[in-house]
């Protein structure tokens, strides 16, 4: 099966930089516009792409991503369309890892086995399901077994010595370090606090660590890149998508913004 995630982390390591992970919501503001942004992301410098699965009740998300989900659902977003979008992307790009991110209920409604099978067919490399902690993700782990899809675990500022082994057991792809206790799009993390925490985590695992939540500017990205293997930017990209004119969709302002983030990570070598 595919090893796209591993390949990307090996490649950025050789280049001596952190990987750029970009989040967009599938079907936001509609299928065509969203697909255009998605297809353009690797060229703009995204190393890994997280594609949000729209959900009516995103309890871990701040206002920006809540609204993105609502726009996506309003224009007909669904699990079927999210998978269709991934498949369309994968036809043109066989190297950029594609991670689906969202909440458990739409997966269960689709049926976990059917979902895992169709996600594999669509070329999905990993899954982040925010409300499936290790205590509750065994059914999902079972469903993706042998399909080349990693279940990516979240590590947070509240993760302590007792908790970390539980998170590492069954973790695949990379670790997603949620840098603040809060929702997406919130305030920036305090570097002084998270730096020792992340270096402790890196001492406990060989998995790469991607830092997310609260990273809004090229400067933020540069700073986080110094302590993580990847940085995740979501809300600020989604904010640019919110400004797209649906009647004449133009992905270039969004992609231009991503290009700026990618350039910052390359500068920080």
């Amino acid at each position, binding site marked *: 099966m595919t090893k796209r995630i591993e390949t990307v982390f090996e490649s950025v390591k050789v280049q001596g930089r952190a990987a750029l992970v970009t989040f967009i919501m599938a079907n936001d503001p509609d299928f065509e516009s969203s697909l255009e942004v998605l297809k353009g992301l690797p060229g703009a410098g995204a190393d890994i792409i997280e594609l949000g699965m729209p959900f009516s009740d995103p*309890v*871990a998300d701040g206002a920006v991503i809540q609204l993105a989900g609502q726009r996506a659902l309003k224009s007909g977003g669904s699990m079927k369309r999210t998978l269709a979008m991934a498949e369309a992307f994968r036809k043109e790009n066989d190297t950029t890892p594609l991670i689906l991110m969202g909440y458990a209920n739409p997966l*269960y409604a689709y049926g976990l086995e059917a979902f895992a099978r169709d996600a594999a067919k669509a070329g999905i490399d990993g899954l982040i399901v925010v409300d*499936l902690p290790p205590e509750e993700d065994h059914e999902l782990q079972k469903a993706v077994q042998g399909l080349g899809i990693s279940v990516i675990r979240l590590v947070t500022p509240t993760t302590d010595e007792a908790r970390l082994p539980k998170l590492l057991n069954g973790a695949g792809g990379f670790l997603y370090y949620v840098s603040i206790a809060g*929702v997406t799009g919130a305030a920036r993390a305090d570097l002084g606090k998270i730096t020792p925490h992340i270096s402790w985590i890196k001492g406990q695992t060989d998995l790469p660590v991607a830092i997310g939540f609260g990273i809004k500017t090229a400067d933020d990205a540069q700073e986080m890149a110094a302590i993580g293997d990847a940085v995740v930017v979501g809300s600020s990209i989604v904010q640019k998508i919110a400004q797209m004119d649906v009647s004449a969709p133009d992905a270039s302002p969004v992609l231009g913004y991503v290009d700026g983030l990618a350039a910052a990570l390359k500068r920080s070598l």
Partner: protein
Amino acid sequence: MAMQQNSYRSGPDERGHFGPYGGRYVAETLMPLILSVEEAWNAAKNDPAFWAEFEELAKHYIGRPSPLYFAQKATQHFAKGDKGAKIYFKRDELNHTGAHKINHCIGQVLLAKRMGKTRIIAETGAGQHGVATATVCALFDLPCTIFMGATDVERQAPNVFRMKLLGAEVRPVTSGSSTLKDAMNEAMRDWVTNVHDTYYLIGTVAGPHPFPQMVRDFQSVIGKELRGQMMEAEGRLPDTLVACIGGGSNAMGLFHPFLDEPDVRMIGVEAGGHGVDTDAHAASLTGGRPGILHGMQSYFLQDADGQITEAHSISAGLDYPGIGPEHAWLFDQKRVNYVSVTDQEALDAFQLCAKLEGIIPALEPSHAFAHVAKIAGELPKDHIVVMNLCGRGDKDIFTIADRLGVKI
């Protein structure tokens, strides 16, 4: 699934599941806290000093035990010839703050204190849980923020004012349908942000483990009292228990102590809104299917894609698209029978109860009373029905006046 099949009262299992339902479906940031709530709860529930404090407050602050009242006029009203059940009300509307919600608020605030938490948040629909939370926070000198859907802020204005008088901050929530579900989403977002000092005082038998079990255990005071009171009044157990269900806290409190009594029949009454065959109701069991939201696996109103749909009920307290996981399990086990009552039936029952018994019930137990009205006349004279009159209706008079076209 370590639950013993010979008892309906042994759940949840060690992972917080009632059969497939329940569990801890929360963001990882909250997991260590959820586990520490569980640890604190396990210690507290085995500590006689904890229960002594609870009982002291239940007696002198809440006013427990609540009376068991023989509703003679209602009994006569529904009787048909040689038939007609004997109707009792368990009067939890006489509690301090006017509903059963205060029972689990006292219990949880004591737990929050034990855990050293210094700030309380809660969600509220009708405002009863918000008022009860604001009340215990005033009593224990804790700052308190109540999340309430903007729609509910409007239709429950008296309770909003009460919460403010009690010193709480009321935050109107405008996302989604602006009702209870969205208030709960927002409370969870606040909790994940303030995880270090905040206790989320969940207002029903829902949310991640251990909340469904803990709220049930505090509310079980209702059923436990009833057992003794009924033995005193009739010398035997009741035949049928009836309670309304939104999240299901008052019903679970009434039912749980009787679950292993095979001769006690139980009926949970969901809010049927405009009818369960329409898309405007709040009957998660009758009209929903299993899913995951708000930290638990249970029944939810949702579309084919797994998007949660909006609930509707004339009663803000029942206007929730989900239900506690233990109810979901009891529904599957067929131990409890779940039915629904429409807005109109509840409205009629509200007025009937006021005129017949001189008791203005909340719109929530008006649903239960509407179902009692449907069944009482068909039951034998020696059949004993107990309805949980879980809240008083003062808060609803503006909604009722509006529906009746009366200007106050």
